């Protein structure tokens, strides 16, 4: 029997996970119209073969709604995580490169942001930006960059003083060459891992503020909206309205977290040869 190749298995796992997530996103976008279709002839149906997740009090197919909601969440997550990571990259590098004063100011700012409870900050920014899609995106994007910025700052600081980089510049290697050959290969793994691990946070925070009513408006098929509406019907025994959307949200978040963990393992030089 051939020995198990950890690296190949990991790559296979990554492809499958990414595939599932892309599939959910695409399916949700296709099912968007079906998700808002009402039909009072089939309201409040329990899960069956025809309606996998049941239907709600307006006869909307919960399976389509859940997929549409997840798709929306993933897309918002992608956008906010990308913006957040970009802010982190710029501020983290600025910290390390622009000197002591800039470092002190930005580090203080990071500490301040981290000191405020996340959900509170997201809510405040979201309300300030007028709720809705813009509010949610701004809120999540502007509050999630702190820890990644700190990681990047540390990494760049350490790299700048690394003997192999000092030696290279003494040997007449140009600044651009040093950034390209020495800095980026060290920074990229940290950055990519940080970026992917931002998704689950972004998605969860997006759903939670929507659930609390400070996020997306209620006509959009978002997971947060679905969950908050279903709360009213839970007491009347319609368990499926909350259970399936909630479960699938947890699954998606866990998939992203696993994806990030595996990517980190694959890219980290300390474990890359395992």
């Amino acid at each position: 029997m051939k020995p198990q190749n950890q690296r190949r298995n990991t790559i296979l796992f990554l492809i499958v996970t990414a595939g599932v997530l892309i599939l959910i996103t695409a399916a949700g976008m296709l099912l968007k119209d079906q998700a808002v279709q009402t039909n009072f002839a089939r309201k409040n149906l329990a899960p069956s073969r025809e309606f996998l997740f049941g239907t709600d009090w307006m006869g909307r197919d919960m399976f389509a709604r859940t997929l549409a909601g997840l798709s929306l969440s993933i897309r918002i997550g992608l956008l906010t995580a990308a913006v957040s990571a970009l802010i982190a990259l710029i501020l983290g590098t600025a910290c390390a490169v622009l000197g002591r004063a800039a470092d002190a100011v930005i580090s203080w700012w990071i500490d301040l942001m981290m000191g405020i409870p996340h959900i509170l900050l997201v809510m405040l920014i979201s309300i300030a930006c007028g709720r809705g899609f813009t509010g949610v995106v701004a809120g999540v994007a502007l509050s999630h960059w702190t820890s990644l910025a700190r990681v990047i700052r540390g990494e760049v600081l350490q790299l700048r003083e690394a003997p192999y980089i000092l030696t290279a510049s003494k040997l007449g290697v140009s600044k651009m060459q040093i950034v390209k050959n020495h800095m980026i290969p060290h920074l990229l793994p940290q950055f990519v891992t940080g970026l992917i691990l931002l998704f689950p946070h972004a998605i969860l925070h997006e759903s939670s503020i929507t659930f609390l009513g400070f996020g997306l408006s209620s006509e959009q098929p978002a997971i947060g909206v679905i969950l908050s509406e279903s709360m009213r019907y839970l007491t009347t025994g319609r368990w499926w309205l909350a259970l399936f959307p909630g479960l699938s949200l947890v699954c998606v978040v866990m998939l992203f977290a696993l994806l990030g963990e595996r990517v980190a393992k694959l890219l980290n030089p300390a474990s890359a040869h395992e």
Partner: protein
Amino acid sequence: MILQAEHLTFSYRRRKQECILQDYSLSITSGERVGLRAPSGRGKTTLCRLLAGYEKPQQGKVLLNGKALSSFRGVCPVQMVWQHPETVVDPLLQLGVTLNEAGKPEERLLKELHIEEGWLKRYPSELSGGELQRFCLARALHPDTRFLLCDEITAMLDLVTQAQIWNFLLEEGKQRDLGMLIVSHDDALLQKVCTRIETLP
């Protein structure tokens, strides 16, 4: 050519009161091999870093032929070989890439330093300290190098390899008329290879 350190005073940022070097002067001319001896923690490595331009002295200056060392562009004519070779090579790059970064070294150097062809494709974690040190030497002996600062470069090697490397360096130094600063705890070694021995206060 002459490398001069004039009235150097240096202290590390965290410990402003204790100066590690105070008003220290030293000069090395081409062809000279100056030994440097001092107990641990007296600033031997710091002196090397100052002379090679890795640190700036608080007072005093480092001059090469009367011009400030920092005014030289491109490859610095003063190269330092470090005590710990594993910190001076990028762990994510193959050694061939690291070696050729500042231009391809001469074939002759690789042969005389016993660097094998196959090592060029390996990563630093796959070679031993002594093997890495040979790469660092080959890189530091760039054609433009005029002064070589050797900071305990053979402290972790066995005697045979040590002898091999020093024989090579002496020969190379004579041929190219290099000036050298040799830091070591090993008195016998300094007696053998140096033309003059200095002690740090």
